[in-house]
């Protein structure tokens, strides 16, 4: 369905020396530097899959998405979606895709939301009947009813994002590109949006490419992930494998009873774990313990902690995606040496 082969995109950047003098220099004799925002990115996505496309900020995710959606022309390499090269005939190509850029909106800022949908209906040539059933469906999953008559500029971020997602799905696209669709949203709205993505994927076999920084987005939605960093592929596979390999770090937070007089040394004693698998930080009674759950099972860690001290509040968190990326990246850098 989606093929990306050795995609590379270069940008020219004017390098400015610091200060006013540097600004003048850049004005008259700009020093240009070529930066590859994407460098040899390859992957493919079969029909009906939800792919998590992840990486740290500035990794080149958006650049790749923009090449796949026909906005940017790759410097070299090729992508093919649905058998079409996006840049060849942009107008026809985009009929089959839906796009959401979480930081932007495709809604008509000054008009009531319904107007945007009726404009999109005409642009994408959706029939009246289709439009009705589609709007009913989107209304149901994304709960647009309460604000559908308000001008877009008066909507809250959560409402706007739901409206934007609905706009991208209106014409039954075969491929959906979602670039950070849950950014800045609360849990309820996030859940709403995930439901919509899941439903449309299941019912219509829509292929979805999703970029996000939210690990639960990925856990709940994605069959597979592709991770990139500094414009290069670093991982391609299932989330489970990735977590099994890198995501075993857990973070335990607890508040010890002040009367117990717990210190990090006391906590570590009797656990029998080497230093590389566990670190303890403490701020008076608040403890933060990071440990490798492959070496020290979570249950063991909890039991041990509860046996050495009384606690007021305790929680264990999964490693977040940033942590995994950091791990992956560190490994890549070590491999270079």
């Amino acid at each position, binding site marked *: 369905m989606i093929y990306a082969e050795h995609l590379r995109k270069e940008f020219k950047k004017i390098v400015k020396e610091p200060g006013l003098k540097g600004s003048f220099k850049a004005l008259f004799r700009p020093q240009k530097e070529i930066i590859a925002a994407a460098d040899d990115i390859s992957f493919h996505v079969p029909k009906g899959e939800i792919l998590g496309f992840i990486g740290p900020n500035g990794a080149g995710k958006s650049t790749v998405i923009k090449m796949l959606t026909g906005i940017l022309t790759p410097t070299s390499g090729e992508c093919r979606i649905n058998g079409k090269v996006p840049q060849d005939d942009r107008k026809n190509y985009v009929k089959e895709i839906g796009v959401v850029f979480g*930081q932007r909106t495709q809604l008509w800022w000054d008009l009531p939301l319904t107007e945007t949908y009726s404009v999109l209906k005409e642009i994408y040539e959706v029939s009246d009947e289709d439009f009705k059933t589609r709007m009913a469906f989107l209304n149901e999953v994304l709960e647009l009813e309460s604000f559908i008559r308000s001008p877009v500029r008066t909507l809250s971020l959560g409402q706007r994002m739901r409206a934007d997602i609905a706009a991208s799905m209106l014409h039954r696209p075969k491929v959906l590109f979602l670039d950070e669709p849950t950014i800045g949203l609360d849990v309820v709205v996030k859940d709403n949006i995930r439901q919509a993505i899941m439903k449309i994927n299941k019912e219509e076999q829509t292929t979805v490419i999703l970029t996000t920084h939210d690990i639960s987005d990925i856990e709940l939605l994605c069959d597979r992930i592709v991770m990139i960093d500094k414009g290069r592929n670093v991982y391609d596979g299932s989330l489970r494998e990735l977590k099994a390999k890198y995501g075993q770090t857990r973070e335990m937070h607890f508040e010890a009873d002040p009367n117990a007089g717990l210190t990090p040394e006391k906590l570590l004693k009797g656990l029998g774990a080497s230093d590389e698998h566990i670190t303890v930080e403490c701020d008076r009674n608040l403890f933060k313990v990071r440990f490798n759950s492959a070496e020290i099972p979570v249950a063991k860690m909890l039991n041990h902690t509860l046996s050495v001290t009384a606690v007021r509040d305790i929680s264990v968190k999964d490693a977040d995606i940033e942590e995994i990326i950091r791990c992956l990246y560190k490994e890549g850098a070590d491999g270079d040496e």
Partner: protein
Amino acid sequence: MNKIRKQYLPFARAGIQTLIAYRMNFLGFVIGGLIYCFVMYYLWKAVFLSSGGSTFMGFSMTDMVLYLFLSNMTSQLTFSSVSTDIGEEIRDGSIVMRMIKPVNTDMSYLFTELGGAFMKLIVFGLPVILGLETYRFAVSGTVMFDPLNFLLYFVSASLAYLISFRVNLCFGFVAFYVKNLWGIGILKNSIIGFLSGTLIPLAFMPDILRIILEYMPFASMSYTPVMLYMGKYEPTEILLRISLQLVWAVLIYGLSKLIWAGAVKRLSVQGG
């Protein structure tokens, strides 16, 4: 044709609705335009009074009033803000939202603006023409309104709009290279203001300069329709002027397409 109507008319409708959403802005625009016309009127009145004669370079005072109001109105009607719009969208990257729609980028701009132009014609253009004709009637005592000239004006002003839109579109594409258009935008507006005869009628300029300017696309952007309305051209010249506008419209259309094809390849979207 039907497809164009269905797909792009919503853009025009949205353009009108956006204009209405900012009523005060629009009102300010109308009132500001009128104040400017009156200032120019008193300026030229002073010129006429000091020249001593009843006509000045072939223009009577009535002609001059007509010219001032018509040319200002026409340049407002044919004014296209597409260069700032597209410049802004390139600068903040929101042009990507236009590019993910299955429509022609330039056509979507055109129709959004046509909606606004239509509103301006109704709310601003027609009252000004009505006022001018009342004035001419009061001064001369006869009805001077000529339906044929008005028709010619309408055709020519429409062409003028298309030229102005394409010129501004070309100019907007400069934003692909310089990223921020504000400074050169002001430069462009004053150059067009002068070269198109809005500031000073081209008829008042030295012959050589006038002939050159009359053949440039800028004259097609407001001078030609105004002269047609005022009935200043002989039939053969009418034909020449309108064909000249057509030629410019086609040439600039081609140029804008060419620039777009080149510019889109080097689009680098800022932010997000």
